[in-house]
């Protein structure tokens, strides 16, 4: 069980996250939902280590505890932001190499692992990113998030701005990832991705409420 506790964050006098906490089980997918500007991305970036919280901890099943007031947990948590963190003028392999913690030869082995193979990026690793389609870039970005084999994968709107076939592919991949024991926390506005989730976390006025999945959209929206 991954446990998030007492997370607080403010922008000046405006409180975004007010002592929030929740738990996540391994191999499950969780959706972080809320209205625009409620703080979903802020929470994601805090968990990823890009921002420092005013307070809060993240505990891992093996007893590791990360202080969310510090950064440096990229080996434990993979983060895939909404915009692809790719350098357009380099090829896919170089983009992966940039974020990989090991050597180039180790990267080649990691790319051959099931987790990355499932993404199907082999065929275009040598192509320049600017020449890839939106779906390919998205898969490459997810591969970057996974390349260091993190315990939790954070996805900020993973299939935003993609066409329907790509959305389906991404959804299929996330489902497979879950089956292999990966834990996912994602923010989304897509119903297809919502259907993958085992639990909804709704962020409103700085507080989190947990809900069972499968509720009608109207009811879900009323909770925002």
């Amino acid at each position, binding site marked *: 069980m991954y446990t998030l506790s007492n997370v607080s964050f403010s*922008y000046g006098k405006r409180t975004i996250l007010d002592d929030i906490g929740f738990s996540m089980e391994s191999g499950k997918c969780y959706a972080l939902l809320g209205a625009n*500007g409620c703080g979903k*991305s*802020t929470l994601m*970036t805090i968990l*990823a*280590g*890009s*921002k420092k919280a005013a307070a809060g901890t993240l505990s891992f099943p093996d007893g590791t505890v990360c202080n969310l007031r510090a*950064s*440096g*947990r*990229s080996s434990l*948590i993979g*983060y895939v*932001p*909404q*915009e*692809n*963190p*790719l*350098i*357009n*003028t*380099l090829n896919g392999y*170089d983009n992966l*190499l*940039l*974020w990989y*913690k090991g050597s180039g030869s180790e990267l080649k082995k990691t790319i051959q692992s099931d987790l990355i193979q499932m993404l199907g990026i082999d065929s275009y690793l040598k192509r320049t990113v600017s020449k890839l389609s939106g779906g390919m870039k998205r898969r490459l970005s997810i591969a*970057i998030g996974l390349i260091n084999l993190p315990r939790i994968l954070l996805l900020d709107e993973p299939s935003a701005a993609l066409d329907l076939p790509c959305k389906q592919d991404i959804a299929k991949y996330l489902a497979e990832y879950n089956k292999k024991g990966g834990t996912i926390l994602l923010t989304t506005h897509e119903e297809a991705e919502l259907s993958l989730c085992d639990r909804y976390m709704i962020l409103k006025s700085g507080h989190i409420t947990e809900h069972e999945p499968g509720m009608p959209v109207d009811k879900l929206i009323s909770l925002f």
Partner: protein
Amino acid sequence: MIAVRFFLLQFKLLIKRIPQMILVFLLVVFLALCTLFMLNRIYDKLSPTEKEKDANYIAVVCPDEDNTILKYAKDILDQVMGSASSLFMKNENDKEGGNKLLNMFAGTGDLLKFKFMEEDEALNAIKNNQILAVLYLGQDDLNKIQTCQTAELKIIVRDDSEYIPVICVELVNSFARLLTAAQASSLAIYDIYTNTELDGSLYGAMYDIDMSNFSYAMHRNSVYQRVTVDFSTTNSPISFYTATALTFMLFLVISAFTPALSDYEPSFCKCFKTRGIGIVGFTIIRLVSFFVFQFVTLTAVYSLVYFAFDKYFNDIFNEYGLTNMLGLNLSYGKAIPIIAIFALFSSAYVMFIISLIKNSEESLMIFFMFAAGLMLLSGCIIPSAFFPATFRSIMTFLPAWYIHKLFLMIIEGVSITKAGMVTYGIVCSLLLAVSAVLINVIRLRTDSNYEK
């Protein structure tokens, strides 16, 4: 590890721009040669002076207007110069220098000549290689000669002139002999000095050559006066606008290195932060990688041109009156720090432009607006003399002012390792680099905050 990888990947990004950079560079060189060719032809039409005929002249400047002995000065110097020329032939210690001078006169059979000039005219003439040297002869100097005292004479010679030791030594010796002869007799100097077989100098003379400042002072024993003359300003519009054109072309070459900010989405910096490298670190890594890449590339290109093509290009530039342009009046070793300063400025300027653009399509537009505005405010388009005095002092902090001055110095053959210019270049480039980093950080922070 990610910092090192990112640093190395920047090189990969910049190497991809080399074909684009080569094309721009070739275009710039072509435009530069066309500009120089046209300006040189215009200059020839405006100034039809025959330089070769004046080459064996020494200009004499009498700065004191009310010079009662002026009427004797011409004859005195006539004898001195004539004596000096004959001494060249007899000089056993400097046969090579003497022979060179004789070879120069071989065609015309002339001896050294002198002519009186106004100071401005004399300084321009020596800058343009029309005369060998400028000798200042003030009232005080003439009085001292008349009263058999040692005069401290100021002579200005081009520091690339190979005749320096010959001219200076022989002129000193000539004046020493003059004084010796005057001491031996109470007759007027003019009358005494008709005897050219007088020798033996009681006055040893030493001269001090300041290679970087175009000034030489002759002195008795260890007493000497160092005089500097600033050749960094010019009245020649041809030189000025040649430097302006070269400055603009330099900015154009730099723009070829400008990668678009869209290469890095704001989310890229967010991911960098998850690795503990903030926006400041990200920006500094980019700046350092630009700097190292440009320094390595420019040094390689300069080395290739210097060692392989130096003579060939110098022949071309000499034809356009730009002597030793590629050598920059420097040894190879001295050029490397200059290249480093330029690389620092160039990378800082690129970072500065990046902070202002959103995509590569905007980069050219921003470049032209910024470069043109910078050049206008730096006195590269309208000379600084037309700006208010207060603004002129602010101008010296703008990088385009420095670059323009550098080109002007190269065109006019002034050594660019004058201490002030090098220090100024370093300070200016560092200031620009710091500004570029700050603006980039603010820009990236603003973009990432906007995302919320």
